[in-house]
Every structure is written in structure tokens, then in C-alpha cells.
């Protein structure tokens, strides 16, 4: 999409133009999607720093990797596994919502968004319950700090994703989206899948490995 900011036949106003020149947009990705890509790139680096801290704590622990997490801590692997299933399912409902509006099915869009929000809330609620019963707190050493930092960072992203999806749902119920114009759902959808992907990484590295 680089060429058309200066399409001939439009805007021959060289003598009268004020302000910055017309943006030269480039290239295969439109500007909102490129913005989302850059945002996700920065998010990946943010998570990367937390992973680095977590793995550092793990590597310097004298009992790792044979005994992890260090005694007397233990992870609720099953509950977190159920939570993973909930979040992965929410990616399906998100995809269903997008496919629905692309086919002009508004009811499917609304149902998909509501289901995704419900599943996201279930994820956050389960994580809050897990925190309450995990048996350690942020003040219980570097391991606990890294655990809560990493999973809490992800929980915050789920919350942001839920906020974006709520805005999209409100607009969907007000009839704002069409099969041709649904960027307001597409971008939260991309973000939601990114949050899902990050959880799979977090769950595998923290709970399973």
C-alpha cells in the first residue's frame, strides 16, 4: 500500500499545501495492522525479560533441574492445565466471531465475542483462585517473585485483552461491524491470540518443564 498516498489526479496543490507532506505508506501490511505487529514485538520483548529473570532464578538454584520448583513449593499443574484449555478454547470462539462477521452473521459475532469474554473472565478467576491457594507469596524469595511476576504480567495482558474485547462487543451490539469493515474486531482478535500464545509458552516453561 505504498503507492497511493500520492495518487495522480488527486491533491495537485503544491502551491497551497501546508503542514507535513502526505505520508508515504509502505508496504504489505496496512498501518493499523503494522502498529499491532510493532506493539506485539515490544510485548514479546517485555515477556522475554521476565522469562530471562525466571530462568536465571532457576539456573542458579542448586537443586534445579531435578527438583523444581524448589521445596517446599509446588505448582497446581492440573488447575493451570484446565486454565490453559479455557484460554485455548477462547481462541476458537474469537476465531468464530471473526469468521461470523466476515460472512455477515452478526449473531455469530456477538455470541463469539461474549463467549470469548466469558472464557477470559473464567481464566482470570481461576488464576486468582490459584494464587490464593498456591501456598506461597511474592515475598517468599526470588523464585516466588519471578513466578508471580511472569504469570501476573500475563494476567494483566488478559485483562487488557478483555477490555479491548468488551469495547468490540459493545460496538458489535450497536451494529458497528460489517463483512467489509471489521477492523475493530480483527485487531483485538490478533491481540487475544497473542495473549493465548504467550500463555502456552508460560504454562509449558513454568508449570511443565
Amino acid at each position, binding site marked *: *500500500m*505504498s*503507492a*497511493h498516498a*500520492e*495518487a*495522480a*489526479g488527486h491533491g495537485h496543490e503544491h502551491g497551497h499545501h501546508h503542514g507535513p*507532506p502526505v505520508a*508515504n505508506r*509502505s*508496504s*504489505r*501490511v496496512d498501518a493499523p*495492522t503494522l502498529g*499491532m*505487529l510493532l506493539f*506485539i514485538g515490544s510485548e514479546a520483548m517485555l515477556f522475554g525479560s521476565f522469562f530471562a529473570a525466571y530462568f536465571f532464578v532457576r539456573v542458579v538454584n542448586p537443586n534445579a*533441574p531435578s527438583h523444581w520448583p524448589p521445596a517446599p513449593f509446588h505448582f497446581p499443574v492440573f488447575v493451570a492445565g484446565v486454565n490453559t484449555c479455557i484460554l*485455548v478454547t477462547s*481462541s476458537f470462539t*474469537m*476465531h468464530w466471531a*471473526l469468521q461470523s462477521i466476515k460472512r455477515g452473521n452478526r449473531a455469530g459475532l456477538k455470541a463469539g465475542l461474549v463467549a470469548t469474554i466469558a472464557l477470559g473472565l473464567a481464566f482470570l478467576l481461576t488464576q486468582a483462585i490459584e494464587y490464593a491457594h498456591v501456598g506461597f507469596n511474592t515475598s517468599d524469595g526470588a523464585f516466588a517473585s519471578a513466578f508471580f511476576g511472569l504469570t501476573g504480567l500475563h494476567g494483566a495482558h488478559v485483562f487488557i485483552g478483555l477490555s479491548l474485547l468488551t469495547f468490540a462487543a459493545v460496538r458489535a451490539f450497536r451494529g458497528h461491524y460489517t463483512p467489509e469493515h471489521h477492523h475493530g*474486531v*480483527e485487531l483485538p*482478535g*490478533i491481540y487475544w*491470540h*497473542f495473549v*493465548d*500464545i504467550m500463555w*502456552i*509458552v508460560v504454562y*509449558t516453561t513454568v508449570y*511443565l*518443564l
Partner: protein
Amino acid sequence: MRNPFRDEGAAFRLVFLTIGAFGLIAIGSWISTWLGAAVAIVLAAAGVLVVWTGRRERPDRLRPRSPDRHRILVVANETVEGEELLAEIRRVTAARSAEVYVVSPALNSKLRTWTSDEDGARDAARARLDRSLARLRAEGLVASGAVGDADPVLAVEDALREFGADEIVVSTHPEGRSHWLERGVVEAVRDRFVGPVTHVVVDLERQAGAG
């Protein structure tokens, strides 16, 4: 490489790729810590390889938007004012309703591209385009156009988003004097887009000599 977050569908597929990759790493780790590490390294290397080599994109079929009017997309650099190109456009548009869209890539040096110094290149491309359009309109043709990306294939791809063409005409200098031919631009356009692609060779030196 195609952006894995280019749209929601692509991001959704990436969820499954992630599940598969990290599932393999987890299984490997349960068997042996070193096996898990080896699987992670192999998958990371495979990922880097995919990014490095890039994926060949599927060709796009031309999608004409006007059944009543033949639409021609012309991509040309300095040859945009060449007689051979005008003759080809006259031939293609003869005895039928036609519309021409000229895309003039903003040719630039690599150093200037890297430093985002594009103003001069775009001004030059704009001047070429304006002269070309004026000449086409003087011949009675419906003509419009735009300055395009320095990469001619990308410029065509961009232009096709706005101008549904029936055919593409690529204009170059003769063999030996054409950077585009050296870089295989015509073949790249033919590979990238399914539809008629005509290559016109414009000899500006001969044209200048004759003039």
C-alpha cells in the same frame, strides 16, 4: 517472510503451531532434559530457517472490476515516456473502451532508501508520471496513476489493491541496460500474478538518436 500476525486467521494458526512446538518440547523434556533442550534448539533453528529463507507467496489472480472497460496497469521507470510503450498501449486499447493506470516506482539508491531519504526519488517519479499521464490523456485515453514503491513488484501489488486490472504491462530498458531485467523483475511479476503480463522494451537511446 509473511507476517504471522498479519490478520486474525494467521494469528489463530500460530496458536496451534505454538501448541505443537511447546508440546514437543514438553514431551522431550519428560523423557530427558537434554532431549527437551535438543528439541527446543531444533525447533528454534527451524523457525530461524523459515524466517531466513522466507516463504514463497502464492500468486495472486488479477481481478478485473469493470466488465465494460479494459483496464491496463502499466509499470515503468524512465521508460514511462517511451514510444514503444505508447505504441503497445495504443495497440491494446485500440477499438475498445479502456482505462490505463500508470505506476511509476520511486527509484532510489540503497543508501537513500536505508536513510529514508525518498523525497528526491518520489519527486522525480512524480514528474515522470505527470508527463506520461499528460501524453496518454492527449491521445484520448482515460489515464490515472501513482508513484509506487521502489520495488516494482511491490509497486504492482500495491497498485492492484486500488486498480483491478485485466492485464499488466511492464516496461524496461533493453537487455544489458536494464536493472529490472538483470533482477528478473518481469519473471517475478509473472510468477507473482496470474493473468496476462506483457513485457515492452523501450530503447530511449535509439529514440533520442532518432529525435
